[in-house]
């Protein structure tokens, strides 16, 4: 395959990883917000904090990876997007600051008022950030970002039906993924009540997201007809079918308490949607700009892809080890508190 296509593929893999892993972290924040009052919500918040803690930084790096690959691989597209969409991107960036910092701060503070304050910042920014990132996706999908620097409308490019739907969908899928992942995490630490609780939340959320997706398609038909046509009758159709099937299967699996298998199908449902969008829009990245027009020179693509290939040899085992370390069965942290100094 030619280098620009490989680069775009790698970029989309990174985006998928960010949506799945980073998305689940955001979703954890959404459930933190909806966990209930201080005392009653405590077990839920504990589980969320415990699950996200060791992995969120690594999950977050996927976003940086995507941004860097954009300016390396398709620089004019990166410039067009970030200049026209600077308002939602700035808001998303500030949300990222608030979220990461507040999460770390809450972890090390002990007093109730501070924990409340940092917790609130963490939870609210967990909703705001994916929403704004979603509006950016909607802006691209509905062809509202023209080529060139700041050539699009600064407001309507991201305040429009497709963007709003995409923003809400981003929050919804994040929450759904998180609920699915947390169900298994709760089961693993041996808390069946909590697992049941997240199972119910996952089921409810899955249904809401399913309905939202259907509504989203209707909005696309009207607001982004080209993408709609590709999704419903073109190359992207198989991926859409995959996504819908995986989504329905997930509900069944959740119902039957197959918490490990549902992780896979839920991820497939989300990934199918993402790749459906990618395939549906390819090769046009922005209106009138194809991948070939935008791609960096081959020497850059070759060097960067080569570096990433070598890096992957280090990264893949390390990432695997990270997740394996913290997914392994382990005693509840209470047991260890005894040998605290």
């Amino acid at each position: 395959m030619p280098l620009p296509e490989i680069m775009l593929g790698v970029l989309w893999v990174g985006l998928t990883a960010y949506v799945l892993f980073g998305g689940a972290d955001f979703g954890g924040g959404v459930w933190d917000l909806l966990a209930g009052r201080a005392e009653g919500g405590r077990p839920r918040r504990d589980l969320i904090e415990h699950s996200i803690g060791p992995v969120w930084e690594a999950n977050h790096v996927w976003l940086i990876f995507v941004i860097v690959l954009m300016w390396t691989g398709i620089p004019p597209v990166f410039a067009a997007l970030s200049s026209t969409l600077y308002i939602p991107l700035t808001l998303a960036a500030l949300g990222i600051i608030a979220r990461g910092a507040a999460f770390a701060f809450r972890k090390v503070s002990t007093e109730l008022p501070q924990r409340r304050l940092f917790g609130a910042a963490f939870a609210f920014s967990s909703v705001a950030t994916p929403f704004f990132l979603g509006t950016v996706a909607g802006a691209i999908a509905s062809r509202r970002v023209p080529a060139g620097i700041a050539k699009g409308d600064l407001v309507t490019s991201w305040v429009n039906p497709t963007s709003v739907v995409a923003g809400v969908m981003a929050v919804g899928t994040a929450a759904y993924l998180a609920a699915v992942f947390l169900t298994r995490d709760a089961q693993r630490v041996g808390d069946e009540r909590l697992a049941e609780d997240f199972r119910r939340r996952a089921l409810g959320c899955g249904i809401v997201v399913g309905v939202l997706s259907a509504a989203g398609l209707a909005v696309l038909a009207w607001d982004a007809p080209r993408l709609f046509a590709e999704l419903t009758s073109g190359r992207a159709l198989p991926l859409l079918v995959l996504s819908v099937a995986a989504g329905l299967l997930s509900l069944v699996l959740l119902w039957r308490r197959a918490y490990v298998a549902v992780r896979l199908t839920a991820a497939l449902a989300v990934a199918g949607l993402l790749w459906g969008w990618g395939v549906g829009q390819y090769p046009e990245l922005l209106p009138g700009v194809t991948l070939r027009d935008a791609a960096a020179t081959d020497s850059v693509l070759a060097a960067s892809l080569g570096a990433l290939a070598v890096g992957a040899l280090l990264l893949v085992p390390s990432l695997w080890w990270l997740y394996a370390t913290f997914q392994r069965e382990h005693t509840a942290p209470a047991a260890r508190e005894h040998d605290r100094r």
Partner: protein
Amino acid sequence: MIAGVVAAADGPDFLAARMQMALSLGWHIIVACFGVGMPAMTLFAEWRGHRTGDLHYALLARRWARAMGVLFAVGAVSGTILSFEMGLLWPGLMGVYGEVIGLPFSLEGIAFFIEAIFVGVYLYAWDRLPPRAHMLTGIPIVVAGVASAFFVVSANAWMQRPTGFQVSGGRIVDVDPWAAMFNPATPHLTVHMILAAFMVTGFVMASVYAVAMLRGRRDRYHRLGLLVPLAIAAAVTPVQIGVGDWAAHSVADGQPVKLAAMEGLFRTGRGVPLHLGGIVLKGELRYALEIPKALSLLTHWDPDAEVIGLDAVPPQDRPPVNVVHWAFQVMVAVGFALLALSIWLGVVWWRRRDPPRSRWFLRAVAVSGVASVLALESGWIVTEVGRQPWVVYGVLRSAAAVNPAPGLVWGFVLVTVVYTVLTIATVYVLRRLAADQPVPVAPQERDVTSFRIV
């Protein structure tokens, strides 16, 4: 139309974009220094504790690891903002030249991954791994931290000495990404920066314990907490000054106008003096102390060598002289002050195997942390403001790279507010951590049951 764009690019939005970039970079770099330097210090303390069985070292390692958890989080988020801002504020730079500096940034992405993965394991699995294995997980963090500093600064170095690409008709047609990464400014900038990171980390950490000791807590725990980071920083300082000299020579060769601004030299000439202090008024440096022929001597090892002055380029191509000149003086002054402190420590240690006992020594260490940060920021001001009006030296003007969209001022206001809050919260949390008595088993594992939860 074109005039309108140019006018807009000189207006408040352009200024706001520059200030926003300076604020977020200047903020990130302080935390980033700890990302580079602190893992090594923590690992060293952990290793000593393991080897000698001295509980004080083990305790220090755990303390530092807890602070690292916070610093890494704010480092990661403040760095993410930067990668957004490269596009939000400077699309004219990234849209054309993004690919030229893409390689170091891609490599940096790998380093960040390694760092984040092993930070997760190191901090959260402290009690799940045997001590030796745990220390091994710290090593990739050290390597990745230093490597990421190298990669980002090499991208910045390219902006100072652009090489490795060809432009035709406003488009990049040929790139040699390795030549761009290893441009002539890369060697001295990266080395100078990595050493600076160790100095900042060492002096700041030592200054925390110096303050505690001044308040009367002089037990072994505090003495070690002061000595380990201070010894590392003190060992680095003389090398850093040598590297600074190397940097200045390199600037004289490659960016003579920047050097002229650093020295406040307006007229090209032979046997030019070195200016200490002084202020530029009406296109002339006044009230400066002159050391005859010293600048020629220092830059070219020849008292009669020619040094290029600001008059070599038209006024619109000159950087703001006062800012650059003063920032340079501050960096050099602080560098020599820290050298004196390091020598003090070294001499007393050599004689008595014990650090100086004088309260003045503790006071000096207590301010050394702030001083090293001051040198760090001044150095970056020299580098970045001295590069103006170019964003890519001699190739692309900053004003041509800025996002022409209206309203950047409001983004700047918002970012300033958020950073103010972030600064207050970070300082508050770190102070709480320092005041906090017991240290948990695994630095981050205190999360679940031991907390009284919201």
